[in-house]
Each structure stands twice: as C-alpha cells, then as structure tokens.
C-alpha cells in the first residue's frame, strides 16, 4: 500500500465556487492509503508546490493525488514537483475537478459529490502506480534520404549544412527527379535546370553527402535513432569511381533504338546512356535489357572506346549495410496512366500528350530542342487544346482517376498556355477547366496574365471526346457558361494528368511501418501541428510523397523535415515515454495477436528458455516489446488473449480500480 497525500486545489474560485474543497479533502482522508489531505488556493503556485514537497518529507509520502485542473494542463508541473521532492514523477495522479466538474456543474452539492468520487478514483489508481523510468537509447548520427528529387536534395543539403552525414538513395541513374524534366517554373518562369542543377552539383561536392544512385532500399530494421538499412546498388556495369562521364561510349554504342525514359519515350537513347547532360553523378549506365554484350555476349564496343577502362560487364548487384538515426521519405510522384481515359484518344494519336510530355517538347534540351512540334508529323500546331483535371477531382470515376485535386495542374497549364502564346502568337490556345485554383503567392496574378495579356481562351467545361480525323483532332466539349457545345479542330491536345505517389511508396511504407492514406500518400503525425513527421518515430516526410505539392512548397517542407532530423540527430540519447506496453513472459503464449494490431512494429518474438516446475527446461516463443518504438496506445493489451500484455501507467488493474471506485 502506498502512503498517499491528497492535495485539493481551489483554483481561486474556479473550483471552490462550485465544489466544497474543505469537504472534499476531509472526505478523502479516510480513503485507503491516504495519510495526508489538505487544500490550498493555488496548488500550482510556488507556495502550493512547496506545500506538496514539505508534506512528502514530513509524512514520508510515496504517492500524490492532486485534485485540480485537467492533467493536460498541469500533470507535467506536478510530476516535476514530485521529482524535486524525491519521489518518482510517475507516482502522481490528477483528479480533474475543474474542467470536468466545477466548470460544468452549477450545484455545490452535486459538484462536491462528483469531486469526491473523482478523487477516490485517482487514489485507487495511485495505490497501484509503480515507479517508472524512461528508457534511453543512443542515436546514430547519420541520416538517410530516400529519393533524390528536389525534396530529397534540399533535405540532404540542409542536414549536411548542420554537420551531419547524409546518404541519398535514388532509383534512377541520376538525382534530379521530376524537376530536372521541367522546362520553366511558375510563377516566375525561371528555368528549372538553371535553379536545380547548381543544387545537384552542391550535393555531389558536399563531403557530408553520399549518393547511392541506381539503388534502392531493400530492408529496414530497427527504430528511431537506430535504423539498420540494407541498400541494394543495382549493377550499372560501369565502375562509378572510374567513369569520367566523357560520353564516348554513348556515341559509339550501336544500340540506339531504346526509348528514352527521360524524354518520356518521345525519342531514343543508346543502350549505354547518361540520362541528361547535367546528370549527377555523371556516370554512364548500361541498360541490361538492351545491351547486346550483356544479352548475347556480342559487341563490347563501349569497353574498347573507354579510355578510362570503366566498363565492367561482370559487375554484380551490391548490398550495403548502414546504420541511420533518422529516415526521410522523399519518393515523390508520377502522373497517372492515361490508359483508362479512352475518351481523350491518348493511345490512338501521338498528338494527344500529357503535360509532362509537353514540358519535354518545349524544353531546349528535349527531343525537339525546344521547338514546339507535333509528335506525329513535326508540323507546328496552330490550335492547341489543354484539358485540365484529367483524373483529378474524379469522384464518380474512382477506378479510373483520383478523388483529390492534384493541385499543380492549374498553374502549369496556365504556364504552358502563356509560354505557347508568347513564343508562337499565331497559335490558338484553349484551356478547358472545372475550376481554376490558384492559391499561392503571385499565382492568381500569373493566371490573370495568361488570360488578359496573352489571350488564352479559358472555357469552363469539360472535354467529352477527342477523335483523330485525318491530321486533325476533333475535340467535342461543352461551354458551361455559354451553355453550348463546342467543336474544335485541334492540332495538339495536352492532358493535365492527375498525379499519384510513386509506386515504390507502398512497399517502402511497409518496411518503415509508416502509415499511408487510401491514395498511398504518406500520413503525417498530425495534419496541422506535425506535418513533416510520420507517426512512426524517426521517419520524416518531404515533398509530394505526403500530398500533391508545387516546388516552393516542396522546398519549404524539405527544409522543415531537415530541421526535425537535425533536432533528432543533435541528441546523444533519446529519452522514451515510460508509459509503454510490456509483456509478462510467463503468461505469454506467443500467439502473435499483439503483433498484428501494433501500428508501430514494436513487438517482436524471441525464443526463451523457461524452467518448468518439474525442473526441466522448455523453450517457448514469447512477445518482447521494444520500449523505444512503442507509443503506448494499448491496442495490444486488449488483443492479448492470455492477459500477458499490459500498459505502464494505464495498467488493467489500475483502470479496473478506477471503475470500481466510481461505481461504488
């Protein structure tokens, strides 16, 4: 039995106005375990806290019950008081007699009666409290960034700036991501390459940053501060440290008919390739599905022209093990497939393209060297129709598209339309939209400019059908404001495809035990107050993997994620929350029920040796909770059929005691 001290607070007249505090402290005196009971005007004041400390010394208290305001308000205060008085801070319980009693009840008799019952429940609970000590775990001072787009690049640079080593893992042969494929960026129209490539060079030159390109994460174990990650470096058949990126091999390679992913298949590359001129690392990669030498051993031309001797046809996939303290997910997005949108004839005509393809068509480093040409015949288009919300805000067609707004399409379509009219003023440009959404600094001004200065024809309404006819595309659409059908003979149709998270996100989320929403976007720990943290401790989110985002938003989120990582890595040791689950291994039967409901992957199983009553030993499988990972929700305690699992601070017998005290 504890030696409990009860302290009833008046909170001025806040509590004393509707609760007879004197009567409460008198009534609680006779409760089991109570050796001291008092009341005071302001328990949280210095004088009130001193009163608690003195009572602890004088009466040798082992538990404290404060009948006062909500524990959400002053639980931390009174825990500190307890620690200062020399008892374990987790031996304090609060009876909430302000927010949940005196403030909601007007009658003194009922208020007092309820306050006494709440006090009794707190006393019953504190009698079963046990001293708790938060666990400590060391922090590996190295961060992993998964994804090398602008989000990953910015996060890595910011973390490295603070002095911590960072590794970037990128599946493509180069970092740069989607931003490297863009032409100009809204709303300022500066060229994407001009602002991105210097950052890519910064990454390459930063001695704190290592780039694992053409690599993927294959296994993640461990927990916050102590992640154990296996990175698979795919064989690129070129020795990265020797290749100078001169490009002689690319020129000589006879296999020149491989669709170029970087230009979205609108032109071809060779079997050995460097994705684009400013690639980082600037190292050639051999495509094993296209290379003659790798497929049937005939060729070897690249090895002969390589003066550095970097080609290695026998290279194997390599697995690298590394420890990290924090992981940042920056896996980004992709436009959705247009296969299911037959009405727009994307698969029937080469002249129906997506916005990202349009971006490559207008890019000076793209397949047409920046000249706007129709992919089918190379003629310059005279009438262009842009269709917005293709697959976005699509609640009626959930199996085809997405229910959410892709956020960036309104702005890039305005940009495409404006740039087209600027460069080719004799081109007629239509934009079909549901709504034009332009919240953002200087965004609406930008859109107004497209309409007013550049004469882009914005039509509210959707395109119903696109039919290729001769060298024209017959566009059938409705103008909702004029309430009439439109028939336009277009030369080029550009579809603003919805964006979706990268396909690698879901398997990654499983490895990280990080949660995702139904659209496969990563969920943040709190939508407003913790937007760059995943609910899984030590996992942070950067960029479009968390939701559709433009470049300025991505960069600011990347910086925010980096600052959270720096905050974590700056600590030498992590102090955990001691109110975590623990398993009684003598009762555990190893059934895995608890593991299945744990959202954090905190529960593992171990084979342990037990001495049986007949002096034999037996090996049994039992659950083990990792206190550094457990967040203390208690889902496992209810799932456990044998009652082996319990939660510190909210133990089953404690809650039962509260129930009993209330129901007496």
């Amino acid at each position, binding site marked *: 039995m504890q030696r409990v001290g009860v302290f009833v607070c008046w909170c001025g007249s806040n509590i004393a106005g509707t609760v007879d505090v004197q009567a409460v402290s008198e009534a609680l005196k006779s409760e089991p375990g109570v050796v001291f009971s008092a009341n005071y005007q302001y328990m949280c004041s210095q004088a009130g806290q001193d009163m608690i400390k003195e009572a602890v010394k004088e009466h040798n208290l082992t538990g404290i019950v404060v009948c006062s305001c*909500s*524990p*959400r308000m002053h639980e931390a205060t009174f825990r500190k008081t307890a620690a200062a008085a020399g008892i374990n801070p987790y031996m304090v319980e609060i009876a*909430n007699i*302000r*927010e*949940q*009693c005196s*403030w*909601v*009840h*007007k*009658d003194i008799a*009922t*208020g007092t*009666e*309820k306050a006494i*019952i*709440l006090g009794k*429940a707190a006393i019953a609970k504190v009698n079963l409290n046990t001293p708790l000590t938060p666990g400590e775990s060391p922090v590996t001072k190295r961060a992993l960034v998964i994804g090398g787009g602008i989000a990953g690049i910015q996060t890595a640079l910011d973390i490295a700036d603070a002095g911590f080593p960072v590794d970037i893992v990128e599946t493509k042969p180069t970092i740069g991501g989607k931003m490297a494929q863009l032409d100009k960026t809204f709303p300022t129209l500066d060229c994407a390459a001009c602002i991105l490539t210097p950052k890519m060079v910064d990454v390459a030159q930063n001695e704190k940053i290592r780039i694992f390109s053409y690599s993927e994460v294959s296994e993640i174990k461990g927990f916050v501060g102590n992640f154990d990650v296996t990175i698979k470096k795919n064989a690129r058949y070129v020795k990265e440290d020797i290749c100078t990126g001169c490009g002689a091999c690319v020129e000589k390679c006879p296999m020149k008919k491989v669709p170029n992913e970087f230009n979205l298949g609108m032109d071809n590359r060779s079997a050995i390739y460097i994705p684009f001129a400013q690639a980082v690392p600037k190292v050639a990669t051999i495509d094993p599905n296209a290379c003659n030498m790798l497929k049937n051993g005939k060729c070897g031309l690249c090895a002969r022209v390589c003066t550095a001797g970097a080609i290695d046809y026998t290279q194997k996939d390599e697995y690298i093990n590394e420890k990290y303290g924090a992981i940042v997910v920056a896996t980004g997005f992709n436009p959705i497939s247009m296969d299911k949108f037959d009405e727009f004839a994307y698969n029937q005509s080469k002249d129906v393209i997506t916005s990202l393809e349009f971006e490559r068509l207008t890019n000076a480093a793209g397949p047409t060297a920046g000249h706007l040409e129709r992919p089918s015949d190379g003629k310059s288009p005279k009438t262009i129709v842009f269709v917005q919300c293709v697959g976005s805000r699509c609640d009626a067609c959930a199996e085809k598209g997405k229910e959410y707004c892709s956020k960036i399409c309104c702005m890039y379509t305005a940009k495409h339309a404006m740039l087209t009219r600027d460069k080719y003023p004799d081109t007629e440009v239509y934009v079909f939209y549901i709504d034009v959404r332009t919240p953002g600094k200087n965004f609406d001004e930008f859109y107004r400019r497209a309409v007013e200065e550049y004469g882009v024809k914005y039509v509210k309404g959707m395109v119903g059908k696109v039919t290729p006819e001769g060298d024209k595309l017959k566009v059938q659409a409705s103008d909702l404001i004029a309430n009439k059908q439109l028939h336009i003979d277009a030369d080029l149709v550009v579809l603003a495809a919805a964006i979706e998270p990268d396909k690698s996100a879901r398997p990654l989320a499983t490895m990280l035990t990080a*949660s995702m929403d139904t659209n496969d976007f990563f*969920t943040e720990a709190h939508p407003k107050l913790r937007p760059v943290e995943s*609910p899984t401790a030590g996992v942070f989110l950067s960029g479009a993997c968390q939701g559709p985002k433009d470049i300025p938003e991505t960069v600011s989120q990347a910086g925010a994620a980096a600052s959270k990582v720096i905050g974590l890595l700056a600590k030498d040791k992590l102090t955990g929350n001691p*109110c975590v689950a623990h398993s009684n291994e003598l009762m555990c039967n190893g059934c895995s029920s608890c593991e299945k*409901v744990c*959202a954090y992957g905190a529960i593992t199983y171990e084979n342990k040796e037990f001495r049986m009553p007949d002096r034999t030993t037996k090996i049994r499988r039992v659950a083990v909770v990792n206190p550094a990972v457990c*967040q*203390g*929700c*208690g*889902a496992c*305690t*209810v*799932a456990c059929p044998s009652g082996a699992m319990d*939660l510190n*601070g*909210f133990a*089953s017998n404690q*809650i*039962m005691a*509260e*129930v*009993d005290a*209330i*129901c*007496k």
Partner: protein
Amino acid sequence: MQVNEHKPLIVAFCCNWCSYAGADLAGNNRLNYPADVKIIRVPCSCRVNPMFILRAFQRGADGVIICGCHPGDCHYTSGNYYTRRRMAALFSMLDFLGIEKERTRVEWVSAAEGAKFAATMNDFVEQVTALGENKRLEDLRCKR
C-alpha cells in the same frame, strides 16, 4: 413532487488526445451536462478492454460510453478502428448477457468538439435514465 428519482451512474472512457480534450473544452466553455457522468482517461479508445465495460455494469453502472478520435484522426493512426470493431462485437453480445444495448455507445469526439461532448453526454444520460436502473447484471455482492 417526484420522490426517489433514479440518478443514473455513467462511466465514460475518453481517449487522451481527442475526447478527453473535448471534455476539457466543454468545461472551458462552461457547457453543462449531468454530474452523473464520470470520466476515466485512457491513452487511446483501443485501450478499453471489453472487460472494463462488463466490470462497470457488474459494479452497478447504468451506462458506459466510449469516446475516441474521429475515424482517420486517431493519434495512434488506427486505434479507434480497433475500438469500433471490438465494441461492435461486444455490443452485439450484450442482449445475450442481459444488458440493454442502449446502455452502451461509442462516440467520436474531437478535441475541438466541446459542444458535441456536452450534447452527447446530455443525450446519453437521457437515454440511460429512460431505461431506468441497471439491475440485470449488477452483482449484489459488489454492493455496499
């Protein structure tokens, strides 16, 4: 004048992150609800073992309500989904145990919904009062 009007005893399990904070907000806004409601704080609604509810009924509670974060807003991402399933299973067995289903309820109250908390409690107390005293499961040995 009514004599011996039955005052129900209601146990409310509230999750620390949403509903308990919602109850605090009801207090901050001075929104009245009957003193018959006694709140027990749990970290998450999924901490509530069906045993706790049966124990309350056995000890003479007239109604038990479980409050958690709205689906999708759980502080622990998925705890309230477990609550929803477990309670659906438990409530479906209550008739078999001899307790009216109407004595129980699961309600989602966010930290911003003080008014909803007070309204829910007023409504639930009224509902339980109409059912009268819980005599079927109450264990007389537990009565003082």
